């Protein structure tokens, strides 16, 4: 099997992608990577000469949500990914082969491309009782991920389960589920947490690898900075409403219909680092806060245990200006409405006065 089959550009053109579309794709990737636009030619140049590396996609304690996410890829599309960008040599959900023939595809690649292939892991790996809670073809996930992952060029942990154990690892973690990084040493592991991961970040990681010849910079939790370097709360389109003390108080109320801040409905945006507000989901169509529901912090380690109850507000999130908390922001509004300025901070009173007056009702703080 040849390792070099021509560049991505020629592959895309073979599939009917025009030069202009190729550059648009490069521009989109440059933007996702948060690189200045002058990098577009560099991304293009790197991709033009890029090879088509084999990819092994391993599913363990998973729901195939990250696989579904990949099916939603648009830049490039999943057909382009599978036919041109990567050689998807093993993927239980989509591969045509079954049984022994499927396992043959896997081991063929592991042997022929030792140290060169990429691995994506979806789902957590159970370690309790010798790993018997997840086996594929009679071998444990624990055994497989160490052999196949241990001989890879790099591993991408797709989704919160593969990155940190995720939902299977939630208390009481009956199977001893862990993420990939806990099991494989000596091979770079890139964590792309999220429930599921956003496929645009997966594509960007692969492009970054080809463009710069290295994996993107990661934070202490193994997450690429370009995708997880910024807090949802800071990039949120509803942030101005938080700063202005405009909160949804009941589902379907005036504030909810006007797109106000969901902090009081339990939004975990203030404690979650992810680029959801920037890239959004499904080709930029929407994202949780955009659709009216708070963030549940699905890309943070142990989110199921640490971010729940999902509808309980986070305590003590610093607010705008001199206000220390949203409680005080709320009190400031009451003050502005009732005219009792002196009881509360001057800044909050001024800000409250500066708010638009077209609200049909002003919620009075109970706390």
């Amino acid at each position, binding site marked *: *099997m*040849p390792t070099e*089959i021509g560049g991505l550009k020629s592959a895309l053109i*073979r*599939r*009917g992608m025009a030069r202009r579309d190729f550059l648009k794709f490069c521009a989109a990737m440059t933007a996702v990577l948060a690189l200045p636009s002058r990098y577009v030619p560099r991304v293009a140049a790197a991709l033009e000469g890029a090879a088509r590396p*084999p990819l092994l996609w391993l*599913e363990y304690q998973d729901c195939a*949500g990250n696989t*579904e996410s990949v*099916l939603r890829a648009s830049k490039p*599309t999943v*057909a382009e990914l*599978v*036919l041109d960008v*990567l*050689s*998807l*040599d093993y*993927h*239980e959900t*989509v*591969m*045509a*082969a079954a*049984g022994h*023939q*499927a396992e043959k*595809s896997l081991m*063929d690649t592991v042997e022929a491309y030792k140290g060169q292939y990429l691995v994506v892991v979806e789902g957590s790996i159970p370690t309790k009782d*010798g790993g*018997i*809670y997840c*086996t594929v*073809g*009679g*071998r*444990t996930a624990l055994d497989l991920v160490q052999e196949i992952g241990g001989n890879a060029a790099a591993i991408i942990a797709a989704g919160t389960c593969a990155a940190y154990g995720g939902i299977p690892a939630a208390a009481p973690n*009956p199977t001893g589920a862990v993420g990939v990084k806990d099991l494989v040493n000596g091979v770079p592991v890139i964590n792309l947490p999220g429930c*599921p991961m956003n496929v645009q970040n997966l594509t960007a990681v692969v492009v970054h690898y080809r463009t710069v010849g290295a994996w993107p910079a990661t934070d202490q939790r193994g997450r690429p900075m370009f995708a997880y370097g910024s807090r949802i709360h800071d990039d949120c389109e*509803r942030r101005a409403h938080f700063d202005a003390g405009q909160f949804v108080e*009941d*589902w*379907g109320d005036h504030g*909810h*219909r*006007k*797109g106000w801040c969901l902090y009081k*409905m339990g939004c975990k945006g203030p404690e979650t680092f992810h680029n959801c507000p920037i890239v959004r*989901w*499904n080709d930029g*169509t*929407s*994202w*949780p806060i*955009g*659709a*009216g*529901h708070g963030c*549940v912090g699905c890309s943070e380690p142990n989110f199921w245990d640490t971010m729940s109850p999902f509808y309980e507000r986070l305590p003590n999130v610093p607010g705008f200006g001199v206000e220390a908390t949203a409680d005080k922001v709320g009190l400031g509004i009451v003050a502005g409405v009732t005219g009792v300025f002196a009881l509360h901070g001057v800044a909050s009173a001024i800000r409250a006065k500066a708010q638009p007056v077209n609200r049909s009702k002003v919620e009075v703080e109970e706390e």
Partner: protein
Amino acid sequence: MHAVCSVRAVENALGIEVPLNAVIIRNLIEAAQYIQDHPVHFYHLHALDWVDIVSALSADPAATSELAQSISDWPKSSTNYFSAVQAKVKAFVETGQLGPFANAYWGHPAYKLPPEANLMAVAHYLEALDWQREVIRIHAVLGSKNPHLQTYLVGGMALAIDRDSPSVLNAERIALLKKLFAMGLEFVEQVYIPDLLAVASFYKEWASLGTGHGNYMTYGDFPLGVGDPSLHPELLFLPRGAILNKDLSTVHPVDQSKIAEYAAHSWYEYSRGNGTSLHPWEGETQPNYTGPQPPYEFLNTGEGDKYSWLKSPRYEDNPMEVGPLARMLMAYASPDAPSHASVKEKVDAVLAHLGVGPEALFSTLGRTAARGIETWVIAEVAMGWLDQLTANMKTGDVRVHNGESWEPSTWPAQAQGFGMTEAPRGALGHWVQIEDGRIKHYQCVVPSTWNAGPRDGNGQRGPYEAALVGTPIADPEQPLEILRTVHSFDPCMACAAHILDAEGQEIVSIKIQ
């Protein structure tokens, strides 16, 4: 699907009535799930059991164009179009890196389609990949993102409605939904259904294979009004019911208290003994692995052996098949169901086209055809539901949530409930018990446990196992025929596929001996 099932279980436990807009939004989300998921199953998870990609390379593009235009008005059908698709596939094959298409059973004698039909199907495999990505944007509009939607609430939906607000479900977003639903129906009518009929006509022998027990069960779904759908089956567009032993003349009512799960051959331990079965409210999930220590080649499947992580759900001790075939049979056999006329018209048209009788439905081919028919029925009716939501918006009805019991402090000290839904794969139920504002006990009984579960305490096989009995195998080393029947159920990839592979192997070896 688990999201809507779980909120229904809690709403049932606490007696919460969901506003009409939220009922419609949930139905639209579920409809979009069917419209996207069924074609993805057909084209990307099942088609290659029937379609030989390698054979497509020797097709005549002009003859393919003729074939395509004879069965559909779909515009992508020119000779040039199929030539381009063929050239792409050829270039891909020539790289020597076959990726997900490597080591499959290409050239197997059980592949019956002519090269032109194979090329047409390969073209639509690729088209469907692009189409599904676009059509599922419905979920992003109504549910924030796909997969894993995030707008379900106990008591309604978190998707606010305001036709004049820029931030929520407004007139502009309704227009987008209309476009996407129309795109869904168009593809189903012009590509999916014609392809299904074309492929099926070459595989009619599969209309008498893969039957199994002939027992079918549905919980029903798509409530057409306000009220607890778990308690009011008369509200449901797709009806609730049970059919026993292929007898379409009687649809039995379904009572959730008659559902119980065995763990006789499952790696769990029941406190009252492994021969017993437990209703989900009493359900236990205490793992007890007794299989071979990995790495192993075969599981132990002797008389008393456990061999699966799935339990064996039974209805009045009967193994029941769930899924699109069960739903279409139930609607076909239930004259009072709101979906009856639409389902009957389409089922009869498909049977007439293939020149077979209703008995052909009880088969591998029937299962695959029922999935397509159901997609057609739902894609059609969903357009009307969207119109209804739009009409409500116009009259100023913006209620999406009933907050009366939102605060756990308002709940009784103890409560229990169940939620019933029809996931694309089949009947899905959740059972919850609440104590002091917290979940005390929770059990899910999912479609793939109904279909793929092991033998029960009475030694009865589950639907997969029963359906495989008697399957002819041309080449035991390449059991393509096994894949056809197992895939016709649309296995839940996440929790059962690995077990099923081993299970399938074992049945092959039994047949050989």
